[in-house]
């Protein structure tokens, strides 16, 4: 997601490249996930204090990391879209939002399921979970704004601006939620205190994080191809695609 895209700044030239990249990242994601889950669910030992319940961090932590990382990448593409007015940057930002929202949602749900057996409550208003919840609202806001504006170019720029405003606010929001949490200390316990990490658990986490990263790239690339087809419908390069030349079996 961070390679130099200027050479491929037109949708026409990026379209086939995206398919090739997605075809590489998707199986990589599956392989990494299988390895990571094998370690996390089977190989790694049960935790001394939390028992088997801690194993959910192998999904929760990578999802939470990706949810924040994707927002940063979205902000990067948004900045490019506003600065250089390129369609592809805006399409990449548009493609990333649903995956980011999904990661945030998974992080929240797995966090809740982790809390239940460990601390006895599904939701304990700790700083990280509350910030994650607000991040979900930021993602949903960008998606909602995209859907509400009919003109695609206006939607591109409006969502890009909103993403950047959100990105600037995220540190402020995180800081304020932490402050709020410490002010009311005692009422809540940190749900996400990870257990002491044996190196095998760390390996599992790293594998799952890489899997989440590869999945996000593959999903975003697949989605951006669909977005390109939708928005460039009628453009010359689409009718010249190899897929279009194959005979249709009636």
């Amino acid at each position, binding site marked *: 997601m961070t390679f130099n895209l200027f050479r491929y700044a037109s949708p026409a030239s990026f379209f086939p490249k995206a398919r090739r990249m997605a075809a590489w990242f998707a199986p990589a994601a599956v392989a990494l996930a299988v390895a990571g889950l094998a370690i996390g669910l089977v190989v790694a030992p049960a935790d001394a204090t939390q028992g088997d319940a801690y194993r959910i961090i192998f999904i929760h932590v990578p999802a939470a990391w990706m949810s924040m990382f994707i927002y940063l990448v979205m902000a990067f593409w948004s900045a490019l879209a506003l600065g250089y*007015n390129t369609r592809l940057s805006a399409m990449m930002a548009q493609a990333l939002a649903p995956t980011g929202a999904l990661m945030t949602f998974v992080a929240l749900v797995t966090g809740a399921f982790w809390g239940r057996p460990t601390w006895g409550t599904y939701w304990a208003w700790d700083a990280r979970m509350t910030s994650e919840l607000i991040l979900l609202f930021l993602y949903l806001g960008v998606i909602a704004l995209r859907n509400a504006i*009919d*003109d*695609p170019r206006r939607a591109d720029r409006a969502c890009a601006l909103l993403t950047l405003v959100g990105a600037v606010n995220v540190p402020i929001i995180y800081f304020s939620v932490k402050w709020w949490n410490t002010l009311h200390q005692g009422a809540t316990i940190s749900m996400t205190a990870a257990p002491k990490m044996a190196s095998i658990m760390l390996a599992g986490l790293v594998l799952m994080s890489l899997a989440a990263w590869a999945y996000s790239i593959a999903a975003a690339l697949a989605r951006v191809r669909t977005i390109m087809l939708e928005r460039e*419908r*009628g453009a010359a390069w689409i009718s010249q695609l190899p897929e279009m030349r194959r005979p249709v079996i009636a």
Partner: protein
Amino acid sequence: MLEAQDLAAERGQARLFRGVAFRIEPGCALAVTGSNGSGKTTLLRILAGLSAPAAGSVRLAGIPVKPFDPRLREAIAFAGHLPALKDELTALENLESLTALAGTRVTHSALREALDRVALSQRQALPARVLSQGQRRRIGLARLRVLRKPLWILDEPATALDREGNALFDSMLAEHLDGGGAAVVATHQPIDLPPARVSALAIDACAS
């Protein structure tokens, strides 16, 4: 003064026009004609700097300008479909407000005189809410006179004007061109000026 090169515009998926090119010198007007939906308003908005064209460039005094370019904003007086009047303010207050907004300093008496010239002095103290469409348009004309910007970009300025109002507009336009100004006017009606000073652009011919 104003030059357009190879302009193209889209609305959503559809391409409205392309290859639009023209050049307007001081003292000349460009009449833009075309059927409804052909892109006249879009072209004017591009020239005024409200939108970016899908392709091509606009040049002011030879220098390319991007949307909302400060030089463009200094030089033009734009009148779109909407009359830009607040219902709650009187005609005089509206005129004063719009004049100040354009960075032009003008005395109160000059404002009154401008309203007088468009036959609105009787109604200048009434809230704009009670004025008719034609009367609102006249406030727009008064504004054009007071602002004295070099380049006018007008989208169907004769809408809702009666015969008198039309005559007023024609004479104002002639005065403006005589003084070295230029104008781009989107219109359904022919402009009443010597052909030497008016060039025409039919947007339909540039449709793709």
